[in-house]
């Protein structure tokens, strides 16, 4: 069962929808990915207990993709899991700092410390996103959820600030009710190749311990419109589809 199609216009100064294959020296896809678009809808209205996921239908680009090169000093290490931090708090384990500075001589490894990395981000992005709620186990009151989303989105409410790929690139949004408000998409044709669709299996009610089940699809932008297949469709290549000889 599905809800009605909602439209959001989203914009921001920067965005980085990192290509997984260029994740270290980050390079953004030229357009928002379905999973990043889903994240924006999730930020406005979503709870795991509601039993639905946002199914992105299409993305329209309203401004041409323009890149900006950013360089930052980034640590090579990452924060330990929560269990380790709790153990530190309880004094059960020795606290280990996250080394910002230090080299092989000092730390005995080049896996720690920091290094300069590039981000090829997008600047001045503006998209129109279309999506609907897809309920996993059938829900009778889809209209209630749709109304709640419209109410929250049109009042600018969100559970957390939506973002464009990385949390440091906030996304601003406006709920679009009628076609009159719509600007024309920027006419751009691009074959984007295999693009990340989502990291998780959307048919499962994922929690923070969910395992990644990466899905991809062949993305083609025609006249500024990226049509996104439904997650259930075969066009979305998922991990469990084993091809038989």
């Amino acid at each position: 069962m599905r809800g009605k199609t909602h439209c959001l216009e989203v914009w921001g100064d920067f965005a980085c929808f990192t290509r997984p294959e260029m994740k270290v020296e980050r390079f953004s896809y030229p357009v928002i990915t379905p999973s990043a678009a889903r994240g924006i809808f999730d930020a406005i209205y979503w709870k795991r207990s509601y039993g639905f996921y946002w199914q992105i239908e299409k993305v329209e680009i309203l401004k041409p993709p323009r890149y900006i090169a950013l360089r930052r000093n980034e640590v090579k290490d990452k924060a330990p899991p929560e269990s380790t931090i709790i153990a530190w708090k309880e004094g059960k384990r020795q606290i280990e700092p996250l080394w910002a500075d230090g080299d092989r001589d000092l730390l005995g490894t080049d896996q720690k410390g920091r290094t300069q990395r590039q981000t090829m981000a997008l600047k001045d992005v503006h998209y129109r996103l279309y999506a609907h709620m897809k309920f996993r186990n059938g829900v009778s009151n889809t209209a209630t959820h749709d109304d709640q989303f419209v109410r929250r989105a049109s009042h600018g409410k969100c559970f957390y600030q939506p973002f464009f790929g990385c949390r440091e690139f906030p996304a601003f949004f406006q709920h679009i009710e009628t076609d009159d408000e719509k600007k024309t998409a920027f006419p751009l044709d691009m074959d984007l190749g295999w693009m990340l669709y989502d990291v998780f299996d959307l048919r499962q009610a994922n929690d923070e311990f969910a395992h990644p089940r990466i899905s991809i699809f062949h993305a083609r932008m025609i006249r500024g419109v990226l049509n996104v297949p439904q997650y259930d469709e075969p066009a979305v290549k998922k991990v469990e589809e084993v091809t038989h000889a």
Partner: protein
Amino acid sequence: MLDALLKVAGSTEPGFARKIVKWAITCAADGRFTGVIPLSEGKGQEYSHCPNLRFSELVGGGGSRSHFLVEGLSTLALYWKDDTEQKEQEKNHAKHKYFCSLLESASLDAPYLKAGAEMLKDEETLIAIQADLKRQKAKSTETATIMVNGINPLERDDWKNWWRKFRQTLQTPKPTTSKMRCFASGELVEPLMTHPKIKGLAGVGGLGMGDVLIGFDKDASQSYGLEQSANAAISEDAATAYTETLSGLIRDKGIKFGGAMITYWFLDSIPDEDDPFPWLTEPPEQTSAVAELKASQLLRAIKEGLRPDLAGNRYIALVLSGAAGRVMVREIMEGLFEILVANIEKWFSDLAIVSREGDRLVPFPKFFSVANAIEFLSKDGNILRNINDVPPSLISGLLRAALTNGMIPASAMSRALMRIRADFVAARPPLEVRFSIIRAYLKRKGDQNMGTYLNKEHPHPAYHCGRLLAVFARLQRAALGDVGAGVVQRYYAAASQTPGLILGRLATNAKNHLGKLEGGLAWWYENLIADVMGKIKNDMPRTLTLEEQSLFALGYYQQLAALNAGKGEKSENIADNDNNKEGTK
């Protein structure tokens, strides 16, 4: 990008790679050393399917491993410099032993390799090989192979099956095999954990041994509990194909500009003479003007349907550099071949500018010269030929502008402007290409009034302020001759930023200069000044923004060119024709 690379990948196979081999150490069928031969007259011979181990395979297993059949002379012949450290020598001895053991094992399938192993194991023979190498001035880092009784194993297939099986034995068995979707092919595959290296970026910040495009060795690069390159699943076949293809493109079509390497390909191959990239960059024997003509002709042929083979073709261009063993992708540009050619033609036409003499257009600058003119200023005002220090970001920005008809980076315009000012202060004639860059910048910002020649009807007063300065300068010269530091040298920088303050003072001086001229000439100058001031009206700007300063610079330059062309008569006719032509485009 990866799927586009796979589309042009030739036949590649994991465990094999293209290599250039400089030397062949030869022996007879009984293993007797017969001499060292430089391949391809010392330039090195390229072989497309040499056995190759990935870095992880080379360092795995605890002991020292070497490649098979092709190795460095330090490994193959224990040939090194006298000052090589003991530790390094021991390592090379171990690798040499491994190399010989590989030859012996492979001799089950290719028996002649046994003689090669015998030759390399014999210490006296090794001394003879080293002496021969020294005589021929070989370097220890150069690569070599063996030839037995005239048989070059790299030209044969008899050892390949053995090699494939042997390589399998080097793979570490994985506890679990989870399949993922390949980002290059879309197939369900077992992801390769460490990828082969891309070669050819050593001159642009990369390492001699190569750099990885896809590598996740640090904790911070890994997400969702995925290890190493499972973060971007690619199969071994696809990884071999993309690395071999990209390395080949860098080698065959790489264009090094400053700290960046540009490479490109077409999804359908095209004849070399139709490849528009060399026209833009560094045409070997043709001038850029011919390049522009070729672009026009090709474009016309495509539009008239005479070249259907080119019409639907697509190009992909990359700007790459190396960073601590990783490949840094700075730009990915892609589009239709037809649009690429049109954009290159537009690049040339936007850069067109009148010459300082005012009687012709400046020859179109090459891409190389544009980047160079922005970045460098030599003592004599000539463009330096070394652009190794041009920042890659500037190269990327200019290339994007050229290939996609994008904006000229504002930083390029401001730098060009700064160089022009510096030229004037030092009493040097500024490079014409710097005005070309500014014109292209303004054109692409939407200034349709910016012609190649003087435009007396330009709507912006900043342009006419620049013209006025040129007239004042010429008037001073007519009145006083060479005065050393003239109006331009002393006032250009200030007038281009605060014309309201400076031009009034110069107008007062102009009265004195007019008084020194004979009647007819004084009258002519007076009229010209009045004409230019008439365009400024009461809008004399007090200060100019950076963009307005660029208009000022072009106003000055184009007025000067018009004056140089014979009191404006000749150039005005050309200018009218030319600017009208542009207007109808």
